[in-house]
C-alpha cells in the first residue's frame, strides 16, 4: 500500500498544488487592485486584509517558495535541466554565509534609506476654530450673515454640532409619555436642557429593566393644539446623535403626524439606528412611512422636504402637521441616550451660500467678500474652522556615527489674533511608523502619540506661534555591516591566501 504522502511526490499533484497556490495569490492581487477603485471596494471582503502579520509573512513566504518550486519543476520537466547538489567545502560555506548576510543587510539598508528619503514623516495641518456672531439681513428670505475677517484660505469648515441655534426646536408644548421595559418610571425621560456651550438640547433617555432579547422603549408624544399649516418648502431639520448600545439594538425615532385634505392622518417616521443600514418601508395599512437611517452614533444632520416626502409616500397632499413624537428604544439590558440639537420644522431648507446643507460639518467655499450667508435657521453663534497657512517647512538629513536622521520642522504664525472667540486650535497629522520623536513647541510629545494613521492634538489657544518637529532615525548598524563586511571578508581572504602562499 502506498503511503498517503507519496501522492505529493507525483509530478501532476505538485503542479496542481502549485497552480492552486498561485491562483490564490493572483486572486489576492486582483482583489487588492479592484478594491482600490471606490465603487469596487466591497471586493476587499474576499481578500486577506484581516491576516495577522505572522500569517501574512508565512503566506508570502509560501508563495515565494511555490514560485521557486515551479521554476525548479519547469527547469526539470520542460528544459530537462537538473540541479545537482554537491556538498560545499568549509571555505565555500563560509563565503556563502558572508554573502547571504551581506545581501540581507544591503537589502534592508537600501529599503530603510528609500523609506527614510521618500516617505514624509508627518503632513501636519494647523486649524483654528472660532465662534462668530452673526448679524441679520432682512429681505424677502430672511438671511443670517457671518463676516469672516481673519480667514486667508477660500475654504472653511463649519461645525453645526458646536454652533448655537437661536430657535432650535419648533414645538415646546407639553406631551404625554409612555414606556415599556424600562427600569422604573422616571428613569427614562424627555428633557429640554442647556448644554455647556449654551445650546438648547432635547435629551431622550431609555433606561431598560435589564432583560436581554426583549425590546423596550420610551415615547414622548405631543399633540399640537394649533396644527401647523403646510407650505411648499416646509422642511424638517434634524441634528442629532444616538449613543451606541452594547448589542447594536439602539434606535430612536422622530415621528410627524400629518392630515391630508380628507382629514385622514398619515405619519412619517424618521427612525435612526446605531448600526449601518438605510431603507424605506411602510406599515401594513400604508398609513405610516418609515425612513430608516443607520450609523447615527456621531452628530448627524438631515433635512427633508415634508411636501415631497408626503407626496412620494402616500400620493396625497398634506394640509396640517398635527403632532410629533420622540421615541427611544433598545433591548432592555441597555441604558442609552439620544440628543437633538435641531428638531425644527422650518419654512425653508438650511442653505449656506445658496447650497443646501447635507452634512454636520459642511465645507464652504467663500466668495471674495468672506461673508457666509445662511438661510433656513437663525443662529446665535457659528463655529468656523479654517487652516492656518504654513510659514516654514524644512526637511534635513543628519548623519551620525550610529544613525541617520531625517528631521522635518514646521512653523505657523498665529498672528495678532481675532476679535472673535477662539474656541480651539488643533493640529492634525499622519503619524508614520518611521516617526520616532515629535516635538511640539519645545515639548516632547512622543509618548502621547499612539499608533494611528491620523492624529489630532488640541493646542493652547493663546499661542502666537506653533512649531512642530518630527524626527526619524535608523540605526547605522546595517550600514556598518554593509560597508565593513565585504572589506573584512576581502582582507580575511587576502590574509588567508597570502599566508597559504607564503607557507608554501
Amino acid at each position: 500500500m502506498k503511503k498517503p504522502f507519496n501522492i505529493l511526490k507525483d509530478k501532476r499533484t505538485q503542479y496542481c498544488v502549485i497552480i492552486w497556490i498561485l491562483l490564490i495569490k493572483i486572486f489576492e492581487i486582483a482583489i487588492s487592485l479592484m478594491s482600490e477603485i471606490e465603487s469596487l471596494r466591497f471586493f476587499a471582503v474576499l481578500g486577506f486584509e484581516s491576516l495577522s502579520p505572522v500569517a501574512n509573512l508565512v503566506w508570502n513566504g509560501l508563495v515565494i517558495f511555490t514560485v521557486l518550486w515551479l521554476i525548479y519543476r519547469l527547469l526539470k520537466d520542460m528544459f530537462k535541466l537538473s540541479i545537482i547538489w554537491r556538498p560545499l567545502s568549509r571555505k565555500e560555506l563560509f563565503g556563502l554565509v558572508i554573502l547571504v548576510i551581506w545581501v540581507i543587510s544591503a537589502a534592508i539598508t537600501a529599503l530603510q534609506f528609500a523609506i527614510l528619503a521618500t516617505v514624509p514623516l508627518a503632513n501636519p495641518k494647523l486649524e483654528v476654530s472660532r465662534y462668530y456672531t452673526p448679524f441679520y439681513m432682512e429681505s424677502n428670505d430672511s438671511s443670517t450673515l457671518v463676516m469672516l475677517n481673519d480667514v486667508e484660505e477660500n475654504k472653511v469648515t463649519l461645525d453645526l454640532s458646536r454652533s448655537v441655534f437661536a430657535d432650535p426646536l419648533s414645538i415646546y408644548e407639553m406631551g404625554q409619555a409612555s414606556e415599556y421595559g424600562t427600569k422604573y418610571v422616571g428613569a427614562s425621560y424627555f428633557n429640554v436642557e442647556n448644554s455647556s456651550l449654551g445650546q438648547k438640547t432635547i435629551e431622550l433617555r431609555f433606561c431598560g429593566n435589564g432583560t436581554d432579547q426583549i425590546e423596550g422603549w420610551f415615547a414622548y408624544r405631543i399633540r399640537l393644539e394649533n396644527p401647523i399649516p403646510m407650505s411648499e418648502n416646509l422642511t424638517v431639520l434634524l441634528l442629532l446623535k444616538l449613543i451606541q448600545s452594547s448589542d447594536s439594538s439602539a434606535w430612536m425615532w422622530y415621528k410627524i403626524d400629518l392630515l391630508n385634505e380628507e382629514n385622514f392622518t398619515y405619519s412619517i417616521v424618521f427612525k435612526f439606528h446605531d448600526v449601518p443600514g438605510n431603507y424605506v418601508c411602510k406599515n401594513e395599512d400604508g398609513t405610516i412611512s418609515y425612513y430608516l437611517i443607520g450609523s447615527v452614533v456621531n452628530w448627524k444632520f438631515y433635512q427633508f422636504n415634508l411636501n415631497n416626502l408626503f407626496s412620494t409616500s402616500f400620493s396625497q397632499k398634506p394640509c396640517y402637521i398635527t403632532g410629533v413624537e420622540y421615541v427611544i428604544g433598545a433591548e432592555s439590558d441597555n441604558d442609552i441616550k439620544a440628543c437633538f440639537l435641531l428638531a425644527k420644522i422650518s419654512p425653508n431648507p438650511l442653505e449656506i451660500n445658496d447650497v443646501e446643507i447635507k452634512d454636520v460639518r459642511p465645507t464652504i467655499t467663500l466668495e471674495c467678500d468672506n461673508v457666509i450667508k445662511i438661510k433656513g435657521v437663525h443662529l446665535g453663534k457659528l463655529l468656523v474652522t479654517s487652516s492656518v497657512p504654513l510659514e516654514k517647512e524644512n526637511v534635513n538629513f543628519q548623519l551620525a556615527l550610529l544613525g541617520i536622521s531625517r528631521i522635518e520642522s514646521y512653523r505657523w504664525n498665529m498672528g495678532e489674533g481675532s476679535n472673535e472667540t477662539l474656541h480651539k486650535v488643533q493640529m492634525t497629522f499622519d503619524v508614520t511608523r518611521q516617526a520616532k520623536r515629535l516635538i511640539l513647541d519645545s515639548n516632547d510629545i512622543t509618548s502621547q502619540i499612539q499608533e494611528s494613521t491620523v492624529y489630532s492634538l488640541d493646542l493652547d489657544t493663546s499661542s502666537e506661534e506653533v512649531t512642530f518637529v518630527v524626527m526619524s532615525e535608523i540605526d547605522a548598524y546595517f550600514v556598518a555591516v554593509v560597508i565593513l563586511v565585504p572589506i573584512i571578508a576581502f582582507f580575511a581572504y587576502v590574509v588567508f591566501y597570502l599566508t597559504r602562499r607564503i607557507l608554501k
Partner: protein
Amino acid sequence: MKKHGWFKLVAAGLLIRLFFSFWTGNPHDFETFVRVGYFVANGASPVLSKYPYVEGLGQPTYPYVSGIGYLPAWGLYLASAFKIYETFPFSPCFYYFLIKLLPILGDLATTYIIYLLIVNFGDVVKKTEKEKMSLSFFLCPFVVFISSVWGMFDSIPLLFTLLSLLLILSNRTYWSAFSLGLGIYFKVIPIIYLPIQLLFINRKRGPKETIMYLLIALIVPFLLTLIPVIFYGWTISETAVTVLSQTQTTGDGLIYWNINAFLRDVSPNVFRQELLNSFFTFPLVRYLWILGLMAGYISYYKYQQRVFTNFDQTENLNAMLKGFSFATIGFLLTRTFIPEQFVLYLLPTIIILSTNKSIQRYYKLIWALALTFAFVNLYPFAFAYLLNINFWTAFNYLATTQPFSTLRYATRFIIAVLFGYYLLKTFSKLVRNNEKAV
C-alpha cells in the same frame, strides 16, 4: 410499480410537503426570508445588513437578521410572495406557504428532469425502474425536509443545473448555458459545474461554442442582477458585501472543520476565537475548496480523455454525472462551511448513477447522515418556531448551555466525519467504476 402507482406517490409526496409548509421553518433562514420578503416588497434591497422583526410576521427569534447572501432572484420571489399574501385577507401561514411553494414545485420539476434524463439517456431498461429511481429523489425524506420544513430553495438552482445537463445532451447548447445561468442567478453554487460543462462542450463542439457557453452562463445572471439593482436603486456595495461575505464563514456546518465549535466549547481559553479565526482565514485553508474542485475537474478530465466516444449518449450522461459528482464531492470535502442543503446537489447525480448496488447504499447513508446532522444541529422541535417562540428559546438554551452544548457539538463533529468518510468512499467507488469502464 402498478399503473397510476407513481401518481399516488407523487400526490403523497406533495401532500406531505403541503402539510409541513405553512407552520415550519428554519428559525434563522426562514425568518430571514419572511422579513426580506416584507422589506423588498416595500422598496428595500434584499441584501441589507439588518432587517428588524416585523410585527405579526414570523417570530422575533433575532432582533435583527442580515440580508440574503444570494443574487436577487430569491429576494424578488419573496417580495412577490409577500405582495400576493397582502392582496388576500389570509393569516401569515399563507405567506409561509407561498415562500415554500416555489421550492416544493422545484422538487417536483427536478424529479421530472431526473426522469427525462433516465428515460432519454439512461441505461435502465424497465419503465417501472425508471419511475422508481426518479421518485426516490422526490420521496427522499431529506429532500422533503429541505424544501417544506426548512424552507430552503436549493431545488430551484438544482432544477436549472439538471435542465442544463438535459439540454446539453439534447444538443441545445446555448439554451443549456442559459439554464445554468438561471441556476446561478438563484444561488451561485451551480457555477462549480460550469468547468465540467465547458470541458464536455470543448471536446464535443470545439472552443468557439465553449467560449459562447461560458459567456452566456455568466452574462445571464450578471444582467439579471444588474437590472433590478438599477431599476430599484439598490446599493451595489451592500449587495455585493452580503453575497461575497458568504465566503467568510468559517469552520461550521456539515464538515469536519466544525471541530472548531467543539474545541471552543470545551476549552475556550486555549482555543480562542482569534486563534481559530486566524487559522480559518489563512489563504490555504479558506480557499482549500479551490483545490478540491480542481481535483474534481482533473478526475473528470482524465475520465473524459479515456472513455469518450462521440455517439453514445448514455456514456455522455454517465460521464457528465460523474463530473458533477466529483466536483460536488471535492467541494463538500474541502470548504470550511457546508450548509446541509448543499448535499441536495449530490443526490440526483448519485440516483442516476446508482444502478450499482453499492452506490445505492452510499446514497442512503449520505442523505440519512445529512438529515441526522440537520436535526442535531437544530433540534426538530425548533423548526416549529413559527407556532410558538418558546420552541426557539428552548433550543437556544440547550444549544448554548453545557453539558448539552458539548454533547451537541461532539455529535455534530462525529456525524460530519462520518459524512466525509462516506463521501470519500463514494468518490473512490465512482473512480473505480471509471477504471472498470475503461
